[in-house]
């Protein structure tokens, strides 16, 4: 028999807040975005959100070698979401699992509406999202960083897609669930928007919510997206100037 002694510090909420890490219900975790961090990639970005560390590389537009994926009148946008083996508590076996296959698919759908794919027929734009450390909310972090990497690659876009989750934890609708809130909480609603129009390009809901709670969470996530959007722009300005 193996016994594990542990004293995992989950944090204690301050009096002002119900949240374990002391944040207000509509408060994001600390956020940092940097553009242009890799040499070989055509575009790249690094993002930290709380304990999440995400690196994104973009290659393309470039020739697509797989004929059956080729689109005669536009480029395809392919995304690969991948977790490093050491990014989580229990080592993740390398290679795609069902979760990463699904996230790759919806990430591609979340970014596609913003990109002028029709300018590059028969081509591919490849987005590689590497989760170096995961602490809840990596799919949103990956989408947010991917937009910056696409911009860094000079890919022409209608808008910078931005993503953030809201959810319900401890009975309260809150913004940007931490890992503990995601795991123990009641629901998680990841959202991505194109901020210029406010249109939604990613939407999932996992957990049980009344229609009212869902609407509240959706609104909160959209507000979160708008805050994050500013940091995306700052990262690009920091790299390229206004």
């Amino acid at each position, binding site marked *: 028999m193996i016994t594990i002694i542990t004293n995992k510090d989950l944090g204690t909420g301050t009096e002002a807040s119900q949240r374990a890490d002391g944040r207000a219900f509509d408060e994001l975790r600390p956020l940092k975005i940097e553009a242009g961090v890799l040499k070989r990639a055509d575009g790249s970005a690094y993002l930290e959100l709380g304990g999440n560390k995400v690196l994104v590389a973009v290659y393309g537009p470039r020739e697509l070698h797989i004929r059956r994926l080729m689109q005669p009148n536009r480029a395809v946008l392919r995304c690969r979401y991948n977790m490093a083996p050491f990014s989580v508590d229990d080592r993740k076996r390398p290679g795609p699992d069902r979760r990463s296959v*699904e996230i790759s698919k919806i990430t591609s759908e979340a970014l596609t509406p913003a990109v002028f794919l029709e300018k590059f027929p028969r081509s591919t734009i490849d987005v590689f999202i590497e989760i170096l450390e995961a602490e809840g909310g990596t799919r949103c972090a990956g989408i947010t960083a991917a937009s910056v990497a696409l911009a860094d690659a000079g890919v022409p876009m209608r808008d910078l897609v931005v993503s953030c989750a809201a959810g319900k934890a401890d009975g309260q609708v809150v913004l940007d669930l931490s890992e503990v809130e995601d795991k123990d909480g009641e629901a998680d609603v990841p959202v991505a928007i194109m901020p210029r129009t406010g249109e939604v390009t990613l939407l*999932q809901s996992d957990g049980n919510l009344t229609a009212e709670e*869902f609407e509240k969470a*959706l609104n909160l996530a959209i507000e979160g997206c708008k805050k994050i959007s500013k940091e995306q722009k700052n990262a690009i300005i920091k790299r390229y100037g206004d």
Partner: protein
Amino acid sequence: MVIIIPEIIKESVTNLMKNGERSDDRGFDDYREISLETGVIKKAEGSARVKIGNTQIMVGTKPQIGEPFSDTPNVGVLMTNSELIPMAAPDFEPGPPDERSVELARVTDRCMREAGVLDLEKLAIVEGEKVWMIFLDLHILDYDGNLMDAAVLGSMAAIMDTKIPETRVEGDEIIIDREKMIPLPIKEKALMCTFAKIGGELVVDPSLEEEQILDARISIGMREDGSICAMQKGGMKPLTKDEIIKAVSRTQKITKNLMEHLPHN
């Protein structure tokens, strides 16, 4: 495989929609004809054959005794798997499940799990050591659009149809009594309702033709009490917040009717 839909079809379907019509004469909130049979596979402990229009899925369950996950030692497991077998459409290929198949299985699984359809704690046998694992397999036979709703409807029915052996623990021994078959511990019912956005309109239960031209898709999983247990946007174009909120409220009405198709027990 690239499927080329002539622009002319897209245009005509879109124009119909703008006039409030669909090419198969359905209303925007109407499902195609639904048929649902349970108990169709005797070797499966539970089974259902569901048809929505020509879309046809066979769902079967197999219970197995296995070990619980280490972080949930006294909770049984529901495992959902989906196979878009090449029988079902000319562009489905043999091989490991592709991303559409994985998404279908995962959304179906989330919908059932988050709704609390099964009382998984009642599927524990010996805490931390042995639990029932219920394998739910979606076998897609004919793909004519809207797999999501058919998958959840068939899964719900197959789970309601499933009987597992009574188990008891006597000392070190687990006794599985195949002569006493008991139903699964069902707590909730949940179904899914999918909308396609075409020409600015949201229509329920998209046919294959509608799927091939849609701008966006939204699938909403809902419990009997009208709460939302799962949601998944798809498609290459966006939705507005307003469209999403309206889809939720339409779903609340539509799933009420959809529930009627489930076996009554």
